[in-house]
């Protein structure tokens, strides 16, 4: 059982960004995708989530055997795909508590109501774990949140929605080291044989805290290199430029 991306091509406004990307994230593993700016990292996360701006022009994506590209955005979510956004949107007037509740309710069978008491118990426990003040339940989603607060709330939502595959899009950006640890602890606590993670990041730093099983390097819309966690260290030491040279040599 895994999230399988095969020869994926995707374009925005006619410009191809993903140019034959292949990747397999089995349940129980954490895969990191690293790459320079403009390599297509964020495009990959948005295409997997089903953003309308991107047109899939070739290839396939399956989640535990099911064709992901056939599903609507919300169907993908309910099937178990979660995207922790790099820039989460603000939803004015909708409280965190009501938002997550609505998302949970959307997963209930028709006619069944979410049980409020156990919902709040669960919510508070996870907020405590992430060091989020309980006052946040009454705040509008992401409105006026600091960068760190936004990221923590992405992880909180992921914990509450219990996905099968979690995609973290540059979750480390804008975080100080303490917040980074809290966020990483949250993700680590969710690691299980029943769940896979795709961690997208520009910097190696996050991978000190969320230790990946595999590291892939994305450049110009393709995975150009895959390896173990040592690959991340090598990138950190040598920068992305050496890869470009290798691509040129290989090409």
């Amino acid at each position, binding site marked *: 059982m895994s999230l399988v991306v095969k020869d994926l091509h995707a374009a925005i406004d006619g410009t191809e960004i993903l140019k034959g990307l292949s990747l397999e994230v089995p349940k129980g593993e954490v895969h990191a995708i690293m790459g320079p700016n403009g390599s297509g990292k964020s495009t990959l996360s948005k295409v997997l*989530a*089903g*953003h*309308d701006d991107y047109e899939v022009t070739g290839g396939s994506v399956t989640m535990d055997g099911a064709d992901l590209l056939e599903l*609507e*955005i*919300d169907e*993908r*979510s*309910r099937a178990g795909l*979660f*995207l922790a*956004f790099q820039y*989460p*949107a*603000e*939803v*004015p*007037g*909708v409280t965190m508590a*009501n*938002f*997550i509740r*609505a*998302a949970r309710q*959307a*997963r209930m069978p028709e006619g069944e109501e979410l049980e409020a008491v156990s919902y709040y118990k669960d919510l508070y426990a996870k907020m405590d774990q992430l060091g989020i003040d309980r006052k946040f339940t009454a705040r*509008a989603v992401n409105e006026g949140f600091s960068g760190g607060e936004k990221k923590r709330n992405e992880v909180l*939502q992921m914990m509450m*929605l219990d996905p099968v595959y979690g995609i973290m899009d540059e979750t480390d950006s804008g975080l100080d080291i303490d917040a980074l640890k809290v966020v990483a602890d949250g993700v680590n606590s969710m690691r299980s044989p029943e769940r896979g993670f795709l961690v997208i990041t520009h910097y190696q730093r996050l991978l000190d805290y969320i230790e990946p099983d595999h590291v892939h390097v994305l450049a110009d819309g393709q995975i150009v290199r895959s390896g173990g966690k040592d690959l991340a260290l090598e990138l950190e030491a040598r920068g992305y430029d050496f890869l470009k040279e290798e691509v040129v040599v290989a090409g």
Partner: protein
Amino acid sequence: MSSEAVLDTGTQEAIDIDRSKGDFSYPESHKFDAGVGLSPATVDYICDVKNDPDWVREFRHKALKTFESKPMPTHWATKDLENIDFDVIRYYLSDGTKPTRSWDEVPDDIKETFERLGIPQQERAFLAGVEAQYDSEAAYSNVKEELEKDGVIFVNSTEGLKEHEEIFRPWFGKVIPTGDNKFSALNSAVFSGGSFIYVPKGLKVRHPLQAYFRINSENFGQFERTLIICDEGSELTYMEGCTAPKFETTTLHSAVVELVAMKDAKLQYITVQNWSSNVFNLVTKRGIAHENAEVRWIDCNIGSRLTMKYPGVVMKGRKARGEVISIALANSGQHQDTGAKMIHAADETTSNVVSKSISVGEGRSTYRGQVHIPKHLKGCRNNTECDALLINSSSRTDTYPAITVRGNQHATQHEASVSQVSAEMLFYMQQRGLSEGAAMSLAVNGFVNDLVREFPMEYSVELKRLIELEMEGSVG
């Protein structure tokens, strides 16, 4: 129910679902029917049936003349007003049921209607008093014993003018004169039903009083007349909710509501209206706030073909306060032309207007505001905020704020915004598992959330549900 061919399927579905509670009617057996059209004979007919005292008969006839002499306000208002054909409207209908106090006395078929509207349950649950209106005559009214003991009068307007003339008459038609506009004149000529409430000095009525209004006859205009007087230092919240079945032809609703808050009194009037999309809803609502008194209008307008409603407060005494909080939702085929009038007529008076509108599909919402602060006063303040949310590219909104401030000892503030539910916000919400429609209605509910909180609990729940239903046809 027959179909309304002018609306597209999506809108029609949204409206159909919307009427789940109100979309039903029972065979009509009106003992009294004034026929169609309006003439002095119609007015006499109404007076005879209602056994009006002479001063009321005179008042009605004068009003009819005023109505006939007044032009339609089409120089600034929508042309759609011209489509009202006053000659095909029935101005009075009653099944002859006398207003009753106890539930047992209410006829069975009327009771059945009320049960579907949920009135008995609500009354048992928390209401201190209920007056419900079936067609133009109140069929059921009930004031809890404790309120009666305290001297609160809560009756329909007919009973008010007959049994409590000494309190009723001095204020009747004084807050809103007959000639205020064409429709206040029309109401003054043919009014029936509505509430009369008097709260005695110093009494704080803890539970909101509530009335249900409902149109049940095709081509039948409803002309309720409500007068509420809060004597010195008293407090009252009054709630008015509307559900209406849909009809094949145009229906006219033109109420007049007058509020009087004496010195130090607080009066809050809450409306949630949800008319079917063929109703012309042309309402005049105004309150007078005396010294240090407060009048608040909390108003939610959903549905109708055209709503024109600008609740006003005349701040007549020093330190009087006026407030209008309103939510309007216009779907395809609907025009919500709403706003507020704040007339400062004494020193140190304060007014606040917060208006939020949502336009869906081809829907149109208009904010019209008037704030008047004359030169000879000092220390007056006004705050006006109006925010519009456009859902579809074909939705429309207009804002016409008229703020007249003379003199330099006042403070006014005006903010207006127009926004849309952004694609990124929808994507974010959908990524959490909400369908596009659910995401849209959550976003819209978020937009009005701070105002919805001003409504009592059971209304705010109903409001959220109504907004969800209205949003269902807006996407996909």
